[in-house]
């Protein structure tokens, strides 16, 4: 096996060689990926996605005002709102709330933003028990693993692995029957949900007009996590907000369809503050943490602002042919798939995540499936430009001198056709040592070996098209001349 010099390549390789993962990904993409495309084609209103995008971009245009409106409405109901510039500020705030309430156990709703800031470890380091209540997340947590899909966190595991895990961690009799396994998790989680001191969730959408946040789920865990514990803390990326209820309605339709082909999820929870004094439902305290953590910089860049329109439905993962082979762990980030390949470098460093920017084929499937028509390939291409030439605004170091020299030389050749064709012809002469009978090259040395290790390469033709054309021209000229001679 050749040496693998990057974590992305190593993890991708692990994914490719993981039979269980391959089987799951095949099913996921066949069902959800194709299904979402079909749903979009069947939408009675074919302009819905374009309009949703337009609304998203409008809201992003004056995000500060929309967020202020959201905060005011929530505060008016007695909720507390905290704007966190960084992950650290968000973690500090949530820790402080936990300390104030002497929290022993936190029950969580599935949230990628919570993974982005790393809150679990921060709370656990303070001796607080953190329990995921989404079944997939719970399984991943028990396995001391990380999610490999933003909607289906344990897609990389099958029921046999889950059975083994539950037998070991929950002490249940061995069973590979999914309902039995689910019931075992439910029994354990219900106790936690009823006794926890704090619920910590993400936020799928927030609506400024009404001053609430929206959470979708299919398991009912969100409803319990947001209403049973005395304190509910929700954390949202600052771009989750929409201005109006009308925009909210459109995005909710697109979100559940894109995520799981559902017209609506089984549960939709709306939270906008603590329980009212005259009503028993809801937490005693409600906190909303609005997270920036690099999003302002994205918002300020017209080239990348579009990525903030994303509603995190995960549809792009379900269609991406790269994700479909390597799985989510290869991205080494809470955000995997095409959206992860764009948002992770922007949030966490472009040079640091160069492989995510370069490791796709720009096939465009993610653009077609995106409910808000985000052009992720365009943004990947721009990230690559920053990596090639460097970019001060984004603190990007340019690519190696060797790479830049190579492309400069290449561009020079392109502009000098005679030398270009002579170079190709020289390659044609040098290739014989590697050529097989069918005119295909194998076992090439140097960088070309990266191709020929797994694939043959056609040899340079004895006569290029250009030469054949020139011969054809001179032949027809000769025959014209000949026929001209005969006529004379």
């Amino acid at each position, binding site marked *: 096996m050749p040496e693998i010099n990057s974590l992305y390549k190593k993890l*991708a390789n692990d994914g490719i060689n993981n039979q269980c993962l391959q089987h799951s990904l095949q099913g996921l993409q066949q069902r959800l990926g194709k299904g979402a495309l079909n749903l979009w084609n069947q939408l009675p209103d074919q302009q819905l996605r374009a309009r949703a995008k337009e609304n998203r971009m409008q809201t992003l245009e004056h995000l500060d005002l929309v967020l202020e409106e959201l905060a005011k409405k929530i505060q008016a109901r007695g909720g507390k709102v905290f704007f966190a510039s960084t992950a650290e500020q968000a973690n500090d705030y949530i820790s402080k709330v936990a300390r104030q309430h002497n929290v022993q156990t936190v029950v969580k709703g599935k949230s990628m933003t919570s993974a982005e800031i790393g809150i679990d470890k921060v709370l656990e380091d303070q001796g607080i028990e953190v329990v995921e209540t989404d079944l997939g997340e719970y399984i991943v947590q028990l396995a001391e693993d990380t999610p490999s899909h933003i909607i289906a966190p344990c897609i990389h595991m099958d029921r046999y692995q889950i059975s083994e895990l539950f037998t070991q961690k929950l002490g249940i009799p061995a069973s590979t029957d999914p309902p039995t396994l689910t019931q075992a998790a439910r029994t354990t989680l219900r106790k936690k949900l009823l006794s926890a001191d704090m619920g910590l969730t993400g936020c799928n959408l927030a609506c400024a007009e009404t001053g609430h946040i929206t959470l979708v789920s299919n398991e009912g865990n969100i409803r319990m996590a947001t209403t049973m514990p005395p304190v509910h803390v929700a954390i949202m990326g600052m771009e989750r907000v929409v201005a109006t209820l009308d925009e909210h309605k459109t995005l909710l339709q697109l979100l559940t369809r894109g995520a799981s082909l559902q017209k609506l999820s089984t549960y939709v929870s709306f939270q906008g503050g603590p329980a009212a004094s005259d009503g028993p439902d809801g937490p005693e305290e409600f906190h909303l943490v609005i997270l920036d953590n690099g999003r302002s910089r994205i918002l300020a860049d017209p080239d990348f602002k579009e990525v903030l329109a994303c509603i995190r439905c995960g549809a792009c993962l379900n269609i991406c042919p790269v994700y479909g082979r390597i799985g989510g762990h290869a991205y080494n980030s809470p955000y995997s798939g095409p959206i992860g390949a764009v948002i992770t470098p922007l949030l966490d460093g472009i040079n640091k995540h160069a492989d995510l920017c370069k490791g796709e084929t720009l096939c465009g499937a993610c653009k077609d499936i995106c409910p808000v028509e985000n052009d992720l390939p365009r943004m990947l291409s721009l990230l690559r430009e920053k990596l090639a030439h460097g970019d001060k605004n984004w603190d990007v170091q340019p690519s190696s001198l060797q790479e830049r020299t190579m492309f400069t030389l290449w561009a020079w050749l392109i502009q000098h056709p005679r030398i270009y064709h002579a170079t190709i012809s020289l390659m044609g002469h040098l290739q014989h040592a590697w050529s097989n009978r069918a005119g295909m090259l194998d076992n090439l040395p140097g960088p070309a070996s990266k191709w020929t290790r797994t694939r043959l390469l056609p040899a340079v033709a004895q006569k290029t098209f250009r030469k054949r054309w020139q011969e054809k021209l001179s032949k027809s000229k000769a025959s014209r001349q000949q026929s001209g001679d005969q006529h004379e």
Partner: protein
Amino acid sequence: MTQQPTVSLFIQCLVDHMYPHVGEAMVNLFDRLDIPVTYPDGQTCCGQPAFNSGHRQSARKAALHFLQVFRDSEVIICPSGSCVHMVRHHYPQLFKDEPDLMQMAERIGDRTYELTEYLVDVLGVTDLGASFHAKTTYHDSCHLSRSLGIRRQPRALLSKVAGLELIEMENSDTCCGFGGTFSIHYPEISTAMVDEKLRTILATGAEYVTGCDISCLMHIQGRAQKRNLPVQVVHIAEILSHQGEADHAGNK
């Protein structure tokens, strides 16, 4: 037929060097249609490898060269969807701060067509009198199908080829994993992708896989031959120019 404008061949670099018979097949097609053909000398590469690698300054130089070479061409025809996509959609981006060049790029982009698109949408031809007696499956290459929206045209042409039985593969528009320099930088992922493509190709039982982009076909062929799989690749231009019973694809 009224006199059609002279077609300037924009021969993708891979066709020029490795698959010259695909270019010849195109010439045959236009000869058969009695359409004058020319090959602007000096053409090299459209710049796509540099563009997709982020090296836009180098890609811009290639684009400038292209604009120069094809400056006077009335109609530019290319046997590759991704090269047409490059010229039509990416050239204007490369000159976004240079209005004159941008306008020139847009005008050239408007005159640049992929082969099957030109035949079907502009010339209104689907039956080219071709015959190709083989079970064949068709790969929708990414930029061709998604960015240029060309899916119907190649199928319309293939449907008129005598003896050709078109068997659609599952997920025909899933990427083959070539991706230009991606195939060299990420060979393991690229190979896993082409293996999935080959799985769907082989499931059709077709003897040939065809398409409008030689780069994808080269990738599929390279992997199929490395694995000794029983499927051959043939560019759609070769099928359309082929006549007679036996001896299918024009080999080098």
